């Protein structure tokens, strides 16, 4: 058996029980890792930019990107360089274990 991360989906249940207003919203996910959390809410959101400074994790996120989630853009960037070049404002920011 490979390593299983949160197969109980406690994270998804906790998130969606506290906040479930993603419809049509722009989301910035900071420190998305391999996209594990991203896939659990992205289908509900308008558009998603997910940033990850670690090249290996970013590559894993790209590799696991489901075709039906074309509205998700992964960037291999940390928060500071992203903020320096970004001109967009977001409805939602997610700090995914990254503060």
């Amino acid at each position, binding site marked *: 058996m490979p390593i299983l*991360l949160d197969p109980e989906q406690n*994270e998804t249940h906790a998130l969606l029980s506290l906040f479930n207003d993603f419809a049509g919203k722009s989301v910035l996910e*900071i420190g998305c890792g391999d996209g594990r959390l991203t896939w659990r809410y992205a289908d509900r959101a308008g558009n998603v930019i997910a940033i990850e400074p670690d090249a290996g994790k970013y590559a894993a996120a790209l590799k696991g990107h489901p075709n039906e989630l074309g509205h998700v853009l992964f960037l291999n960037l940390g928060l500071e360089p992203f903020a320096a070049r970004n001109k967009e404002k*977001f409805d939602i*920011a997610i700090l995914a274990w990254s*503060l």
Partner: protein
Amino acid sequence: MVHALEAIHGLLEPDGILIDLRPKGIPAEFWGYRGETADFLGHLQETDDFIEYRHAAWAMEQAIDNKWFHLQASGEYDFIVHADSFDELKVHLAIEWTDAVIPEEVRANAASIQAEKITLRDFIHIGILTRT
């Protein structure tokens, strides 16, 4: 960390939402399973004694004090990693949790009960904050 929260404040719409997920800094628990029986094996240790989580909590308190964000709701959940062995878990932790240490006592406890499966239970905080 406070600077990061200030940057996020600047990236959000005026009525935007910040969702903050992070470990609570309580030592994660190893559990060993043999059949239907689960035994507590001990706690994970960190080389820096979980200091980054205390810093993160402090930074968020500062951001709230600075009136960048208002806490709207909060909760917690258990994030559980399942593995067949400590060797498998060690490979995972080397990538995802680089300052994690599996104490020898935990391995010994697992061996003594002939654990067939190991879980690592971490305790996570989730906060929903409104940009102010």
